[in-house]
């Protein structure tokens, strides 16, 4: 596995106090927050910062991390000492979110202090039959689909590690999902301890960006280019939509920005959304002699002042 220098990630010395680590973390979180940062790799950077702080912000995990020594440099190949796992409690390669090889290093620390963070010392834990028993932690991950997948349903393959075992889940994404919805896969989270049941896996549905559409809940907005004469005179046009081509009537006298609502043609969730076609009048270029003549005729024959509303 690849060694990660968490101190370098947070920009602090190895001797930094817990308070300094927290301050450095907060500064970086604000700097790279995906909602405010202009950095192209803000999301990735935030992930790295969070991973580093998960370990260095926790006294027990930090001690275990420090015990690994300074040996290798960032990114170099690395194996923990053979007795390290025994000394610092169970470690396994369980459950990176959507697990890739790079997550293995973080997983060394993932299970330390389980159940104590915000649950006050082990809610969900119990002494069953004289032994310690605890349900496995839930895992949260996101899964990205195309808008078309939401119309039809889809299957996505994700990789997970549980214990020493890698498993691949083929997840059925139901038709009609909308962005932000959570798919709960019971029993697919971290394994339990001492016979406790496994946690659940929660997958947040995200949509891949698509320049053609905007999705708001189950409503879908789509820009539709139309010719000036189609907008002015009205026309029947064929429009490719996420659910296939539809024939649409453009009312005469339409302007750019006019919305045409196609009821029930949004995302087919339990309450199907609507599809809004937003007309975008596109001008033919005046690059040919004939085109220039036509524009000149309009300029001469139409008493048209486009700036009338602004007082010109």
């Amino acid at each position: 596995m690849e060694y990660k220098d968490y101190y370098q990630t947070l920009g602090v010395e190895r001797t930094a106090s817990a308070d300094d680590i927290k301050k450095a973390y907060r500064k970086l979180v604000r700097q790279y927050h995906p909602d405010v940062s202009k950095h192209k790799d803000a999301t990735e950077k935030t992930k790295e910062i969070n991973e580093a702080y998960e370990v260095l912000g926790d006294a027990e995990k930090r001690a275990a991390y420090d015990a690994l020594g300074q040996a290798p440099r960032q990114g170099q190949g690395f194996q923990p000492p053979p007795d390290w796992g025994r000394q610092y409690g169970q470690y396994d390669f369980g459950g990176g979110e959507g697990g890739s090889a790079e997550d293995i290093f973080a997983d060394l620390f993932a299970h330390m202090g389980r159940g104590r963070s915000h649950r006050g010392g082990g809610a969900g834990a119990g002494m069953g039959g004289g032994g310690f028993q605890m349900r496995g932690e839930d895992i949260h991950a996101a899964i990205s689909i195309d808008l078309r997948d939401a119309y039809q349903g889809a299957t996505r393959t994700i990789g997970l590690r549980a214990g020493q075992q890698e498993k691949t889940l083929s997840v059925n994404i139901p038709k009609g999902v909308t962005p932000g919805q959570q798919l709960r896969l019971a029993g697919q989270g971290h394994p339990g301890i001492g016979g406790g049941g496994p946690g659940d896996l929660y997958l947040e549905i995200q949509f891949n960006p698509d320049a053609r559409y905007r999705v708001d809940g189950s409503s879908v907005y789509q820009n539709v280019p139309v010719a000036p004469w189609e907008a002015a005179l009205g026309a029947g046009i064929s429009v490719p939509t996420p659910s296939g081509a539809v024939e649409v009537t453009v009312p005469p006298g339409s302007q750019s920005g006019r919305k045409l609502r196609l009821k029930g043609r949004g995302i087919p969730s339990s309450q199907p959304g609507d599809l809004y076609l937003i007309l975008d009048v596109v001008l033919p270029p005046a690059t040919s002699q004939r085109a220039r003549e036509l524009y000149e005729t309009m300029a001469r024959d139409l008493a048209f002042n486009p700036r009338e509303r602004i007082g010109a």
Partner: protein
Amino acid sequence: MHEMTSISGVLLDDAALTLEELARACNVEPEWVVRRVRAGILGGQPAVQITEWRFRSGDLLRARRLLRVERDFDANEDVAALVVDLGDEVRRLRARLHALGLD
């Protein structure tokens, strides 16, 4: 060992979470959730009996965002709610810009 399993999940909007399940999914005590529901920060159902409370996708997402802000900045719940609301608004406006081709 490598195994391939085909599996179907349940959308939280079809089978919502109970209070205990939401708390477990966020790794917090149920009291953490109760407090925020009663303060009008989370969910929309403080009038109904607690055992009847149900939480959907948006609630889980919001609860995890609130928790993140509270933990990262030792923020109190009202400040965290404000930050999360502002984040939602930023995302909404960005989506509008995207739709207008201005991003």
